[in-house]
């Protein structure tokens, strides 16, 4: 189960026309979005910019959102992924210069280990990278990941398994 609670649908409805409700919505999802993007970009400023872009898009398009069985976070992460994809199209290789400071790495061995890990992760297909980060960093359940990426839950489970195996071979 996800460690995160989805937001009250009434707040989403209010956020369509009320600034404070929208800020409440932002506060609810800001950490998740920011941390998810941080893992992919490894750049705090860039992650911050992408998070801001994501929420500006949410602000503009929130009137189109209809409350369904799927959690709001699926819709939000779809937007975040679109911004991330756009960024990755421009810059396929991400910097690893800041990982020591960013992820509080203290030893040289630790540094090498994480460089290898991020290099291996980058070798995966972008969608597989998203699958694994949503699964293990955001702790999102498979059904929600499947909704976010537009695939079936079974396919999601299979792809996570394969992506992990592939990552394992690269390490």
């Amino acid at each position, binding site marked *: 189960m996800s460690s995160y609670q989805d937001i009250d649908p009434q707040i989403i409805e209010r956020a*369509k*026309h009320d*600034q404070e409700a*929208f*800020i409440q919505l*932002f*506060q609810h999802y*800001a*950490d998740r979005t*920011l*941390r998810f993007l*941080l*893992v992919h970009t490894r750049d*705090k400023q860039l*992650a*911050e910019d992408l*998070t*801001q872009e994501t*929420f*500006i898009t949410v*602000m*503009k398009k*929130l*009137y189109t959102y209809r409350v369904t069985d799927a959690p709001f976070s699926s819709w939000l992460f779809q937007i975040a992924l679109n911004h991330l994809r756009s960024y990755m199209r421009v810059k396929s290789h991400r910097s690893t210069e800041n990982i020591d400071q*960013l*992820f*509080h790495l203290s030893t040289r061995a630790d540094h090498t*280990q994480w460089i290898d*890990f991020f290099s*291996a992760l980058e070798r995966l297909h972008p969608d597989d990278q998203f699958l*694994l980060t949503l*699964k*293990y*960093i955001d*702790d999102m359940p498979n059904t929600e990941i499947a909704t976010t990426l537009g695939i079936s839950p079974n396919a999601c489970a299979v792809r996570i398994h394969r992506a*992990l195996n592939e*990552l*394992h071979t690269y*390490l």
Partner: protein
Amino acid sequence: MNPEDQFNTLRERVSQIDTTTSRARIERNLREAWEQHRAPRSRFAWTRFLVAPLSIGALSFATMLMTSTSQLNYEPQAILTTDSSQTTSYSLVDPTVGGSDVAEKSVITNNLFDGGTYTENGEQKSVLSSRASLSITTKSDLLSGIQSLRSYAEAHNGVISSISAYTSYGSFEAILPLSELQGFEAQLKSLDTTHSFKTLTYYVENISAQVSRLDDSLKTLRSKLDSTNTQLNSTALSASERTQLEEQKTSLQNNIDEASTERADIVATGETIDLSVTINAFQSFWSGYYYQYDHSTLWGTIQYESCKAVHTLITSASGIITFFIWCVVYSVILIPLYYAGRKVVRKIKVGKR
């Protein structure tokens, strides 16, 4: 190390990252963006893009209407009297402005005694020339209606002057004995399936002066004839003079005959009426001919007002459609210009920041 363990470690590390500053910065920027992007939050946000083209479209439409006002002002008129000094015209389109319902009740006459009188057998008499325009609307076939009119006129000893038929109306003109008018009208009303019989005009003119003038002329001619006869009876005339007088007598006699015939015709005119009947084909409710309904009755008023409302609606709708066509035409030019302009403005704003 197992990738799953590495992910778990990474999650722990990531969760330790302090995001307070970033969140505060993003929140501040989002509040600013909220103010800027307030408008697009509506489902109908796209409508704001139509404001400029619609405004220009509306202005163009108004200009178009103003320039064509002179053409729109035309309205067919019915002239109810031939006397130019007393000419009164009513609209045939809308009876409420003083048209056929007024004409129906009014009998338009000149001062009948202005024309004077003439003397016949020691009695003062007058001759009145009558003309009338009648109108009916029929739901039956127009041509068969006109054929019926023809047979009615002939049955009432009428003389047909002209018959014409068009798509939506027909015209029938005849001269009828005045005494037969009522009988003819009764038969005419049998054709009037919509109860829309109307006497558009009824015109009476005193033409006694013409008879009086002819009487004077006849008197003069007869006295000349008597004088010629007296001269012919004289024995002291040469052959050539007699021939000349005979010719003069023949000429005078011819003139007297002509004047007498003319007088008889004029006097006979007083016993006939020039009748003009317009027979209209009934138009459907949706075609907007609301003036064909008799709004002197309750049901007629309901039909009249309903039809008028529908007609107005159709006219307005056509105006609105025309308006939108103009808007579309202008939008084709304006919307790309609007977007280009907006892009430039945004670039300038970004540059200033």
